[in-house]
């Protein structure tokens, strides 16, 4: 399969372009500065409407990227105007800094979107969240009536590619962060988490991420404890969790199916004897213990207890690395699928030029026909005029039938198609 060449000509008057920055081009502080919450994105979409050069647009903003996809007859002018507008909204000059931003046009822009939605452009290859983020950005733009025929088709195609690669390849297989690996492990032990209880010790960034993953997977009950209780309460509020005093942490063990500890404590917080005692009060229920702290919070001897599974941060890092290698092996297959889908989309995209040319040709012929009828209709009696109209209409259609059929095939000829279309335009003095 041939992937469209980014330098291939686009249909006249219809260009797709993307202007953006991402985790590769810009540091996190810059990305934070340019991030758009939903209400800001809606405001930006409304203001983008005022730019005459931009006929359609979608604004995609995540923690790792801010990108504007647009359709314009004059993409250079449109990109410059969007650049200025984004800077104006954020009161910054970030988008004018070429070292932090990028632009792609036509096939390049389409391929970029397809790679983004498949997770090939993500910090962790194949991450799943980007798919829903792209869909959300498309929905926002649709609600704001900023999506027309081209971006509608492009985003539908991109979402189709995203679904296809996740079904046909293992690009999204396995967890690729320590916190999600911990939750994945819990699912491997218990299956569904919606009848399980987790005890989370700590209230830092790792604990927050773990709580987020547990909430996403539908944990039934989350108990949080931390040396500084205020921080535990702040975290618990976000996830509807319970808080217990730090000193009572071992008392919560008999209720917990999952113990995750991520503190900066310098001493062991859970001795093997604590866990042994808890296991006696909860026979036959496995306990998954995940120690994400360095130095470790949990006595390694707990792993010798029956039905207790202890994993530390090293073990989880091994899992994450294995999963990343596995995902990277899938990249060639994903790129092959992107190539196939891009070719299909590009065929439609190029046919836009042919469609407008065919319309122009028909209008041109119709104008000649009308002109000639006007000129000669007085030479015909009233009864014959409708026959004359019918006859000339049929004649024009018959004359155009073969050229129109041939014109449609030109869009599939990457090498000579554009030249032939230009010749037709030239012959009939058309502008389509």
């Amino acid at each position, binding site marked *: 399969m041939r992937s469209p060449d980014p330098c291939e000509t686009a249909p006249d008057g219809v260009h797709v372009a993307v202007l953006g920055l991402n985790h590769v081009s810009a540091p996190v502080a810059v990305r934070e500065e340019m991030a758009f919450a939903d209400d800001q994105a809606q405001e930006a979409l409304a203001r983008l409407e005022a730019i005459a050069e931009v006929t359609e647009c979608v604004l995609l903003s995540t923690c790792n990227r801010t990108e504007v996809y647009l359709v314009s007859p004059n993409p250079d002018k449109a990109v410059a105007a969007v650049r200025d507008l984004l800077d104006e909204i954020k009161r910054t000059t970030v988008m004018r800094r070429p070292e932090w931003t990028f632009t792609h046009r036509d096939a390049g822009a389409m391929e970029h979107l397809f790679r983004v939605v498949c997770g090939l452009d993500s910090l962790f290859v194949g991450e799943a969240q980007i798919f829903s983020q792209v869909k959300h950005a498309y929905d926002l733009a649709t609600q704001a009536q900023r999506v027309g025929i081209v971006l509608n088709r492009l985003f539908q195609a991109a979402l189709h590619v995203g679904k296809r690669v996740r079904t046909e390849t293992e690009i999204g297989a396995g967890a690729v962060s320590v916190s999600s690996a911990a939750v994945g492990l819990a699912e491997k032990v*218990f*299956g569904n988490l919606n009848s399980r209880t987790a005890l989370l010790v700590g209230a830092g960034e790792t604990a927050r991420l773990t709580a987020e993953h547990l909430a996403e997977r539908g944990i039934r009950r989350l108990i949080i404890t931390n040396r500084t209780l205020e921080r535990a309460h702040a975290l618990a509020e976000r996830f509807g969790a319970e808080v217990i005093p730090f000193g009572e942490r071992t008392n919560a063990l008999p209720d917990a199916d999952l113990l995750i500890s991520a503190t900066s404590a310098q001493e062991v917080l859970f001795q093997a004897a604590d866990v042994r005692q808890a296991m006696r009060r909860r026979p*036959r229920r496995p306990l998954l213990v995940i120690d994400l702290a360095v130095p470790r919070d949990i006595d390694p001897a707990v792993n010798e207890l029956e*039905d207790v599974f202890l994993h530390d941060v090293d073990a989880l890092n091994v899992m994450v690395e294995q999963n990343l290698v596995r995902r990277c092996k899938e990249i060639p297959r994903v790129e092959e699928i992107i190539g196939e889908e891009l070719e299909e989309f590009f065929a439609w995209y190029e046919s836009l030029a042919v469609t407008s040319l065919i319309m122009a040709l028909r209008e041109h012929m119709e104008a000649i026909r009308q002109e000639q009828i006007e000129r000669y209709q007085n030479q015909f009696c009233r009864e014959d005029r409708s026959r004359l109209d019918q006859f000339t209409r049929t004649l024009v259609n018959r004359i155009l039938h073969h050229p129109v059929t041939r014109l449609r095939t030109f869009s599939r000829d990457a090498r000579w198609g554009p030249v032939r279309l230009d010749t037709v335009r030239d012959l009939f003095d058309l502008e389509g």
Partner: protein
Amino acid sequence: MTLLTELLTVLLPLCYALLTATYAVVFFRDEPGMARILKPFLSITLALHALYIALRIVLFRHLPLATVFESFAMIGLALAFVYWIIERIVRTPSTGMFVLGLVFVFQTVSSAFIGHGGAINPVLRSPLFGVHTTAAVIGYAAFALSAVYGTLYLLLYHELKVSRFGIIYARLPSLGILAAMHEWAAMVGLASLTVTIVIGMTWLPRAFGWAFTDPKVLLTVTIWLLYVLVVLGHRLGWGSRVRIIYISIFGFILLVFSTLVVNLWLHSFHAFT
């Protein structure tokens, strides 16, 4: 008809060998192309197996349960059929390699030693015998499944204990699901074996005279007691799950021993030819 039966006797072990190998490729390499052929391949093999059993019933005019090797063909069919249902429910072929590998063993032993008729004990024509043996076959197939899922539980348990996240970790269902499947299979097996024993006990004295000291009967009752322990252990939370699973695997080994060794080398009334 005889030719077709003989052909299937040879063909079935080959089909199961190939099927197990295909499931193994999908398990270890996760080939989507191979995964697509699993369902039709399993269905075709199952249909051939059912045809084989039907042909034997028509050809020899009795349920193919007269010898231990005929029973193995029936257990293989029951096991493959139950797995076929399970795969449709859980929608993952990850345990197929293990279950169908066991079916391959049963069918290969059966095909290698199965006879072609001969004088049959008239007791085989009794309707109670049909219920007794059908319940036994279902029970044996369920115990075999329970042993497979128990073994997979122990494998995954070990991998989780040593923090090894290899192919076993990636492909097997969760520990919770394996434990539940082990428990359910053991319960179905126990219920079926109970029916088998009750019918056997009430019908034995009429058919054979007093035969409760028969080695097969003694071993079957021992196996039944072991599985009572397994099921109660699961339901009431006695002892550790790992130990209960070891007991069930021991029970299954004893069951194969009782079927194979006792029938072949010890004197038992459970030989009908």
